Structure formats: structure tokens, C-alpha cells
């Protein structure tokens, strides 16, 4: 479980995050949603330690990340896997080397064991035949899958995904969403996803945190989102025809 308490962050005097608190449960796909520029990615980066907040705490199973020693932070980080918006695969390494990288850097596993683990993870994301390819030779969806394999290869407990299906076609986006959801259940991960994709939210969002201009406006499940009274949330969710149609059918 990850708990964030009263997170505040400002850049150049402009407050981006205004006292956000939330609990992300283990074994659930937790989603942070909101319009562009509302502070979702900043919040995610604050949680993983890339952008330290000005005020507030982040607890990883009761371990306060920002009050931990450097070594303790390192330990927590080694339990974190992250899928970046652009996948962030290392260009100079093949798919296999990318997935093996955390094992090379963070473990003293024998080579054979590492290869087995990488093979297992690539198979899990359906890329067992792409292991020798370079990132430039694979599609956007495949890159995301490699990113997921790299994020789970070291038996991570926490999985963070920054807009996992941005730039993907709707079919591939659903495949990636379902893969993240399945992996979360399979390994009992605490997964936090930043997205503004309504399809994703409806598909896999078990806990949803809605941000608006740096403030937490609403939290709940994807089932309760239609009943939410917040006009800002309603406006955000039902901004397209498809969702309005969905609401009509639901009603």
C-alpha cells in the first residue's frame, strides 16, 4: 500500500499540487486522472521520488520515503517498477538487455538465472520473439510491453505507469491496460496509473483519484464515477460523445 499525505508542490511560485492525500491499495489498479496540466505527472513523480514535494509525506507500507536515509530510499526504489510515457527504453541496448538491466544493476543473480527471469518476463508480456531486437526496431505498443517487463523483472512491489497508452491505437491501448491489470492481480502489486483516457478508467480503474488544478476533487471506483456529484468531474468524463452515450445507456 502507498499512502500520500498533504502533498504540495510549487514551481516558480505557482502551486501545482495543493495538499493532496490519498491511499493506493495493494492488489488494485489505482488511477490518477485529470485534464492536461493539472499536476498528475508531477504527483506521480513526487510519489516515486523524482520530484521531491515541498510539503507532505509518501509512505510505502508505512516507510516514509522522504524521511528515510539515502540507503533506505534506495531500498524502496528497488521495489519500484515504472513504465514511462515514452517507454524510456535504453536506445543502446536490445530488448533483452533492457529487461535484464535492473537485474544487472541491482542484484547479484547468476547469469543463467537472470536470463531465465528475463525470458519469463518477456513471455509474460508476449514478446518472447523480440528479445534480440533494438528499441528502434519495435512498435510503440511493443515498447510499452518491454517497459512493463522491465518494471516487473526484479519482482517489484509497486508499479507506476505514466500514461501507459498514450500514442497507441485503441486496440493496443486495451491490450496494455489489460496487461497492467492482470500483472497487478497476478503479483499483488500496488499499481498507480496516471491517465486521462476514459476507456482505461472504465476498463481497469478500481480506485480513481481525480485532480483538477492541483486539487483532489473526487475519489472512488470506476463504478461510482457516474454517480459522482462533482460538476468538474462530470464535465471532464462526459466531454466526448462516446461517454455521453455510455451514460445514457447506463441510465
Amino acid at each position: 500500500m502507498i499512502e500520500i499525505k498533504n502533498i504540495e508542490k510549487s514551481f516558480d511560485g505557482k502551486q501545482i499540487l495543493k495538499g493532496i492525500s490519498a491511499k493506493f491499495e495493494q492488489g488494485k489498479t489505482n488511477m490518477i486522472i485529470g485534464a492536461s496540466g493539472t499536476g498528475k505527472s508531477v504527483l506521480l513523480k513526487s510519489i516515486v521520488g523524482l520530484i521531491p514535494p515541498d510539503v507532505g509525506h509518501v509512505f510505502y507500507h508505512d516507510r516514509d520515503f522522504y524521511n528515510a536515509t539515502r540507503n533506505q530510499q534506495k531500498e524502496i526504489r528497488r521495489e519500484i517498477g515504472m513504465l514511462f510515457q515514452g517507454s524510456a527504453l535504453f536506445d543502446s541496448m536490445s530488448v533483452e538487455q533492457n529487461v535484464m538491466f535492473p537485474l544487472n544493476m541491482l542484484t547479484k543473480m547468476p547469469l543463467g538465472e537472470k536470463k531465465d527471469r528475463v525470458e519469463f518476463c518477456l513471455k509474460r508480456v508476449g514478446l518472447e520473439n523480440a528479445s534480440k531486437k533494438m528499441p528502434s526496431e519495435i512498435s510503440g505498443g511493443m515498447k510499452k510491453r518491454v517497459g512493463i517487463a522491465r518494471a516487473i523483472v526484479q519482482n517489484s512491489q509497486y508499479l507506476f505507469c505514466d500514461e501507459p497508452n498514450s500514442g497507441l491505437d485503441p486496440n493496443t491501448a486495451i491490450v496494455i491496460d489489460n496487461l497492467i491489470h492482470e500483472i497487478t492481480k497476478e503479483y499483488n502489486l500496488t499499481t498507480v496509473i496516471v491517465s486521462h483516457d476514459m476507456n482505461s478508467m472504465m476498463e481497469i480503474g478500481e480506485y480513481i483519484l481525480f485532480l483538477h488544478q492541483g486539487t483532489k476533487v473526487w475519489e472512488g471506483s470506476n463504478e461510482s464515477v457516474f454517480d459522482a456529484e462533482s460538476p468538474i468531474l462530470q464535465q471532464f468524463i462526459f466531454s466526448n460523445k462516446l461517454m455521453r452515450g455510455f451514460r445514457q445507456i447506463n441510465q
Partner: protein
Amino acid sequence: MRSLGRYILFMGKLFTNREPFRVYLKLFFDECILIGVDSLVIVVLVSVFIGAVMCLQTAFNLVSPLIPDYVISLVVRDMTLIEVAPTFTAIVFAGKVGSNIAGTIGTMKITEQVDALEVMGINSASYLVLPKILAGLIMYPALVIIAGFLAIYGGYVAGTLAGVITAQEYIYGIRSDFMDFNVFFALIKALVFSFLIVSISAYKGYFTEGGALEVGISSTKAVTNSCIAVLLADFILAQFLI
């Protein structure tokens, strides 16, 4: 001043909380090839031609019959050791290696590859930059030694082919009044310059923000700032060591 402060903090970050040295070993050898071996062609070309031009220019300017011809090679030798081999090569090195380092790290930064390292708990600055600095400290002095030999040899070939000096006089000249301190001085310069070029270029790349345009700007700034730092350091070293 703010940039200088940030640069010093960045240098500090390289050595704090770094990974074990075994991690850097393979990276170090890869960087030795990228920084050293891949720069060989340009260094060879530049130094041979500069040596050749130096020999012909010196011969052209030494018009007095009172000055013996061997002085031409003596001048070529001393200019090569003191200035051309370490400093001129540094400018070429900044252009080739500096821009490459800034471009590579800058691209890694804007494509979140640096963030990916940080999330894994790896000191990204140390992981990306330290092997480059160590490789630069080993390979650049080697390049300077090669450049020195080749510039003197370039002068020999040009001088003898153009008929401005005989082979015997040229060899006599490069052996006369030889000060071995000049070699030592050239190597000190090489170490300082390589550190400055690699670290400044890495710093510029590491703090790139934005997109492709900013990566280009970082690469340009890396070369410009490295050249300025090299020339400044050249002056300071000359002031204190000669």
C-alpha cells in the same frame, strides 16, 4: 555563477552514493572506444596537417641566413609539445566528443531514460558520466601523445618534400635543446583539458530540458563552453607551470 555552482554540485553528485566500480568497468571500456579509438581518425588527420603547415610556415618566416635550418624543426617540436598537441587537439576533441556526450545524455534526459535510472535507485549522474570522465582521462593523453608524434612527423614529411629542410637537419633540430618538462607539461594539460571537456559536456547534456531543439542547443553550448574552459585553463596552466 549559478551555473558554476550547479556544475560543482553536479561534480559532487558523481562521487556520492555511486554504484560499485565493477558496474562501471564495461561502461569504461565502451567509453574508451567511443572517446579514444573513434576520435583517432580526426586527430591523426588534424595533427599531420597542422604539423606540415607549421613546418612550411616557420620556414617561410625564417628568412635570415643567420638562422640555421634546423631551427624550423625545433620550433615545430616545441610548438607541438607545448600548444598544438594538447590544446589544438582539445578543440577538435571538444567538437567531436563533447557534442556527442551532450547530445547523448541530453537525449536520454528528454526521453526519460535518466529518470528511469533514478527510479531504479541508480545514481544516474554517476552511472552516465563517471565512466566517460575516467575514459577521457586515459584516452585523451594517449591521443595527445599520438598527435604530438604525428604533428612532428607531418612537419618532417612536408619539410623534406617541399625542400625547405633536409631530413638530417630536421632530425637534428627536433633533438636539440630538448626539455623533457615540455612533455610532462603537455600531459598535465591533456588531463586537465579532458576532464573539463567531458565534464562540461556531460553537465550540459544532463540538464537539458525540452525537446530536440534543446538537445541541439545543449550540444552547441557544450562545445562552446568546453573550448572557453580549455583556453582559460591553458592560460592558467601556462602562468603557473612555465
